[in-house]
């Protein structure tokens, strides 16, 4: 479904390289976790895949269902089924959640040949998705993320995921900021959304999340590269040992820092 081939990316116009040759392959039905120290490039990776214009891919490729998406705009990628749950969801004052979701749902539906929903059908549809993440309907009429608490913003991201039904979801630290109950509720929601036809890439700092959402593969990203890949037990090992022992792998793998 997703294949990153020696992906290099830098901050547009500033020449600061952040991704320094990422290789990753995610297949249908899989859950991948990416862990790694602060500033190692995890969020950048997710934004590059989603098409953020601040980053420029200088080398390598992103294949989605076998085809390069480098030339696609962020909205075209969303239409193709890619979804990014932001580490820091953006506040959009004046645009209500409902407005955003109706607009998004219908444009994505249209481009993927699904049927658009009229306002009444959409209401029912959205109520069902709200209950999946146990979100209060009051949030629908509030401006997107505006004044939401940290945890509410994260829950709202997963609510959007539920509504938009992506095929590839990149969830960037969705667990940070959620309280213990919310973490369980949101994880349950994600598990329910996940099936054989979609894939999830979770970015997280905490092994705890992986008790709820069990990954098929765990990757460690350090300094713009994936330096180690393993099964879910790798997360436990990281929890215990930290990242120090992996720093050396970075240089073993090749090019200079």
């Amino acid at each position, binding site marked *: 479904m997703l294949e990153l081939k020696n992906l290099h990316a830098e901050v547009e116009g500033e020449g600061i390289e952040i991704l320094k040759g990422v290789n990753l392959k995610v297949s249908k039905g899989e859950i991948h976790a990416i862990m790694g120290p602060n500033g190692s490039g995890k969020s950048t990776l997710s934004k590059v895949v989603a*098409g*953020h214009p601040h980053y420029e891919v200088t080398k390598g490729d992103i294949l989605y269902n076998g085809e390069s998406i480098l030339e696609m705009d962020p909205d075209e990628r969303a239409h193709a089924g890619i979804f990014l749950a932001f580490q820091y969801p953006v506040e*959009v004052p*004046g*645009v209500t959640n409902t*407005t955003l979701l109706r607009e*998004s749902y219908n444009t994505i539906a249209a481009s993927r040949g699904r049927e658009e929903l009229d306002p009444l059908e959409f209401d029912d549809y959205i109520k069902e998705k709200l209950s999946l993440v146990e979100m209060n309907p009051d949030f629908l009429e509030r401006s997107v993320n505006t004044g939401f608490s940290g945890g509410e913003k994260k829950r709202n991201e997963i609510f959007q995921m539920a509504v938009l039904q992506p095929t590839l979801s990149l969830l960037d630290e969705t667990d940070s900021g959620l309280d213990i109950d919310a973490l369980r509720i949101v994880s349950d929601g994600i598990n329910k959304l996940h099936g054989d036809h979609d894939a999830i890439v979770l970015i997280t700092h905490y092994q705890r999340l992986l008790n709820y959402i069990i990954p098929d593969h765990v990757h460690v990203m350090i300094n713009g590269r994936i330096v180690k890949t393993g099964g879910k037990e790798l997360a436990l090992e990281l929890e215990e040992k930290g990242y120090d022992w992996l720093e050396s792998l970075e240089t073993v793998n090749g090019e200079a820092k």
Partner: protein
Amino acid sequence: MAHPTRIEPSVLHKLAMHAPESGNRLWTGIREKSMMTLNSTAFPNKKIEEWKFTDLKLISRTPFVRTGQAETIPAQNIEKYFIPESDRSRLVFINGIFQEGYSSIGGLGKGVTVGNLSAYARNKIVQAYLNKLVNYENDLFTAYNGLMFEDGAFIHLEPGARAEAPIQILNLYTDSEKPFIANPRILIVADTDSDATVIEEHIGLSENVYMTIPVCEVKVKQRAHIHHVRIQRDGQNAIHMSRPIAYVEKNSEYHSYTITLGAKLSRNEPRVIQEDEEVNFTMDGLVLIDGEQVADTHSLMDHRFSHANSHQLHKVVVNGSAHSIFNGKIFVRRDAQKIDSFQENRNLLLSADGLVNTKPQLEIFADDVLCSHGATIGQLDPEEVFYLQSRGMTEEKAKEVLTYAFALETIENVKVDSVHKLLIDEVYRYTRANSKPKKVLV
């Protein structure tokens, strides 16, 4: 023509000086007073601080004629501008002249007088207030109006009277062969405990050049409430120089919302003057401009007594090579304590060639006051655009949605449904037209 700015104002001067005699004494008195201002005031230029950013060449170089000589073209389909809620509370003026046939009054219940000023020239209230509230020092434009106006709208609310429907004052400007000047006037006197909503509109029906100089006087007496919506949709080559001033008495409320969409050049000078303690007033504005438009707002909120709550949110969207000027004066006089005043000017610049000048101007002589003020000039936030795009909206749609959201805040308080809807449509039309990246086709 060597010094057009020196020569041409005299066209205006001449028109004003030789305005037709008026049949009634009240008008004659106003003309005399205006003549004194005219004779002692120079035409504004950019060397004067208050006119630093606003070029009036457009006015001084236009060979205006009287409406009668402008070869105006009769207006068509006027009905489409009628507000349904004001079915029986509507005053229509075309080029400043009252249109009895299109107007409709009498649906407002007891104690509410609505009509045209010249029909009420002998009315005690008109006699007592007309032109007495105009307080613009060294202002030629109020003098031009004073010398040339023929008629205007008059609203009087007796003590305790409540206008059951919003009152629409519809000023239409017709197409013409030659540029003309219109001089609308409004006088609103709200007696104690009264209440009314007034929708003042200025609509240009074509693309001809004309100048309108609306002068509006409002007196809000004790415990009275006035909700005043002002919508400027003048023609794209029009000049709009408006002077709305309100006096607020004890425990009264005056809330005004000015929406500026039209005119090539506009200069709006709203003023609210506090006359006693315990008042609450709003002076919000929304400006949406594009192309070569220049929209200038010079406002004044004059706090003269203690316990006032005042609010001014002035939002501006600039595209093309349009130019917005904002100067918001807040005076808090020495004896005016416990003032809670909010002022914010937010500017959204959509194009590289647009220009914004903003100057909040606080002059506070009291010590126990809470005045927050701020001005921001910004583009659409690229993170917000990306966020919406990542949810499937095209870049164009995302920009449209964000611009729309920015503008919407200021019209949320307009409480007449059809007007609120009209404004939403206008905002939508503007954002639709202005969210497309302006690509140069090769």
